């Protein structure tokens, strides 16, 4: 009568769609929380998911229900002190006699609705409508490494790849196919022989013929080999190209006197965006921080953002260090290389032509993408002009101007906009 069913293997996550609907509906709240969260975090912990708070009044599902007030009668359990006719002071709210019964009417109470956004959902919202530019995607697929994967079975191979099960199955089939016509004849001959022997005057010649036939057939059957070379099957493995899943991101920033805290903050946010964006496409990402004034240095994240230097600016020093680091540690065949440079556009005028040369001839051919942002109200200096020339030659070189905090996202959006068609 009773049916017992194990449903544990069934797909869980039946509520995924409902959860997505919920997130869709409260996108405004969630987006705001996401953008607030990103300003507070370190680059590498940014993608941790986020606690989202939605005010109770925005999320309530309204129903007709009884309000407070009027004349209400209740029955309560556990009387310890009361007698008929006793009067009790009303308590303002919360615990105590009287108010208890009402808790169930009001449902979930007035707490704000708090929940955790998963990492994927967080990034989904953060990068809505963004995509790696077409060109970069092509680069992404560039063949750099190979891996071997199984690809069915073949009829030739080396002994260590022998697939015993399949070979035996093959052998059985072959044996059945080869033996069965002889088996039929053999059965018939034996029947005939038996019938013949039962007769009172058996035909000796016929018996001899049949016996010879039987011998002959048996030999035939015996001659079918148990395992033949054509039965053998080997596991097949093929090498398929695997796109490299590791990337390195260089953050290059000018820390000379003219870069103040607010400019660094803008730069930081830009790096965060790029980092997050890359984590969606690559499994492993190295972050390298290069700061420079007149000379360049590789530093930790904290030093990068929070220490200040003074003096002039020589951009080529950073580009040289960048090039050296790539050569020494990040061979382009194994790494996808991204560079994000932020600066206020200051550079020693005589240095700019050298920058052009470095970028054009040495660095750009190694890179997936180079993003340059200039944090400055629009009056550009020599560096901008030089970089524009690079941009004309390399489509994977992008540059934008950022004035205020509010520009970061639109600029980033512009750089990585999903191309239609």
């Amino acid at each position, binding site marked *: 009568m009773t049916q017992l069913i194990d449903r544990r293997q069934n797909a*869980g996550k*039946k509520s995924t769609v409902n*959860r997505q609907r919920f997130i*869709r509906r409260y996108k405004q709240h969630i987006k705001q929380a996401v953008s607030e969260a990103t300003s507070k975090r370190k680059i590498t912990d940014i993608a941790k998911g986020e606690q989202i708070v939605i005010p109770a009044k925005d999320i309530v599902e309204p129903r007709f229900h009884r309000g407070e*007030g009027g004349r209400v009668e209740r029955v309560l359990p556990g009387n310890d002190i009361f007698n008929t*006719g006793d009067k009790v002071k009303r308590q303002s709210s919360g*615990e105590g006699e009287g108010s*208890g019964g009402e*808790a169930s009417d009001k449902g979930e109470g007035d707490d704000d609705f708090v929940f955790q956004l998963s990492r994927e959902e967080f990034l989904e919202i953060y990068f809505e409508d963004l995509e790696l530019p077409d060109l970069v995607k092509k680069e992404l697929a560039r063949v750099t490494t190979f891996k071997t994967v199984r690809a069915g079975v073949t009829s030739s191979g080396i002994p260590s790849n022998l697939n015993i099960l399949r070979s035996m199955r093959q052998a059985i089939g072959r044996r059945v196919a080869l033996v069965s016509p002889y088996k039929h004849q053999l059965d018939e001959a034996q029947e005939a022989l038996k019938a013949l022997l039962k007769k009172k005057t058996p035909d000796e010649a016929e018996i001899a013929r049949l016996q010879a036939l039987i011998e002959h057939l048996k030999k035939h059957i015996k001659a079918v080999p148990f395992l033949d070379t054509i039965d053998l099957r080997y596991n097949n493995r093929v090498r398929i190209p695997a796109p490299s899943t590791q990337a390195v991101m260089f953050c290059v920033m000018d820390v000379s006197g003219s870069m103040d805290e607010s400019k660094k903050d803008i730069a930081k946010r830009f790096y965060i965006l790029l980092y997050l964006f890359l984590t969606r496409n690559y499994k492993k990402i190295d972050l390298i921080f290069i700061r420079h004034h007149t000379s360049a240095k590789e530093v930790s994240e904290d030093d990068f953002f929070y220490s200040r230097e003074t003096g002039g600016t020589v951009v080529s020093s950073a580009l040289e260090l960048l090039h050296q680091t790539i050569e020494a540690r990040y061979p382009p065949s194994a790494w996808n290389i991204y560079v994000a440079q932020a600066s206020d556009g200051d550079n020693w005028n005589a240095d700019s032509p050298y920058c052009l040369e470095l970028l054009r001839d040495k660095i750009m051919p190694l890179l997936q993408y180079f993003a340059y942002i200039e944090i400055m109200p629009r009056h550009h200096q020599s560096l901008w002009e030089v970089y524009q020339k690079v941009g004309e030659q390399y489509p994977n070189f992008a540059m934008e101007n950022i004035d205020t905090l509010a520009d970061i996202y639109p600029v980033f959006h512009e750089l990585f906009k999903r191309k239609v068609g």
Partner: protein
Amino acid sequence: MKKKKPLSTSSEWTFELLQDYDREIGRLAKAFKLDTYPNQIEVITAEQMMDCYASVGMPINYHHWSYGKHFIGVEKSYQRGEMGLAYELVINSNPCISYLMEENTLPMQALVIAHACYGHNSFFKNNYLFKMWTSADAIVDYLVFARRYISECEERYGIEEVEATLDACHALMNYGVDRYKHPGKLSLQEEKIRQQNREMYLQTQVNELWRTIPQTKEAYDQEEKKRFPEEPQENILYFIEKNAPLLKSWQREVVRIVRKIAQYFYPQGQTKVMNEGWACFWHYTLLHALYDEGLVTDEFMLEILQNHTNVIYQPSYNSPYYSGINPYTLGYHMMQDIRRICENPTDEDKQWFPHLANTDWITSLDDAMRYYKDESFIAQFLSPHLIRELRLFHLLDDAEHSELEIKSIHNAEGYQKIREALSSQYNLGNLEPDIQVHSVDVEGDRALTLHHTQRNRVPLGKTTPEVLKHLHTLWKFPVVLKTIDEQNNVVAEYNCPSK
């Protein structure tokens, strides 16, 4: 009686053991004359249990953001350990589907089998409200139909549009129920055909109502005296479905789906005490019967009893854990009390329950389960003995007085009053405000007027204007809600759009 060998000694469950327990419990249930639907027991994981919670306990349901919200809420408090999941979930369907969580120990699984597969199951099959209002054979099919229909609508008209309609219907869900006349049975095939016919027919009907072609003078005069609707309508969603002037036919169907599902859940709200009490009584009784036969061990029984005690724990009114009367406690004790009165009545019981004392308890209890709902069950069977045991008292909270008054306690004068007061606490009119469709201004601006019949000066809650907005999205013309007090005065008025 010769003791049998225990079915198991470890607390790990296996499918074979579940089958053994189900067989034995089923055998005992039969001996106690429990009449059940066939059982379908499904073992699920904690996450699947949360999924079930989120879709209001149904195995399948249409998609809606509010279910996502519930899921997130449940998941959060479960992960933080603020709440445990229910050990079981049972669906009023034929066959009766019960979910067991894989985390449960073997004694817990046995408890759940007794509680859900035989307790709730027999209640679903035999209680008059469930028999009258729900069709257990068709519910799963109907939900399949509803889900498919709604996702088709989403494809055709966009998720947002469908969501807005569903939101509005959900806000009025409790007012999508027929309380007095009861609906016919449903089947998937019929429903499909009927739905297609309905789409065409309904629209013509609505058009008829809102016809603007001038009528002859005579007909007009006759009509004028008639109010529309002629009688107040308690089923607001039904009224909307049939009469809202601008609804598209798919929206009418969506209203209908929500209404049908509301109707299906309607008896559950009115039999919570009885239903849980019945199930608790039977898991207690059936498992003790197993123990008496020696089929389960002492350790097994201790775990059962510990859980049983937790389930029927009732904190006192002044405890920080108090949140109203626990329906499990009240129901369980009342069921046990009926058995006690049948088997060992005191003089007091004989006086209060002459029809129960010294009767066969199985028959008497079965009658109580079949023919009552919470309100009438308490009015009929709450005994002085139990009032004393739970130390119930009756309190009056009148906003016009500065103090609360204790009206009655567990003494001779109090029993009857406490019984009446507790019974009326489960009266639907006391659980939800009484709101009905009063009239439509057919000739004028097509405004829809609802009347809230107020009792005991209790006003409407804070979300009322929001609900009216939802109603307005369905009706699409002005909506007015008037609160009428006991002296027939209008004491409050809500308008949407607000004046």
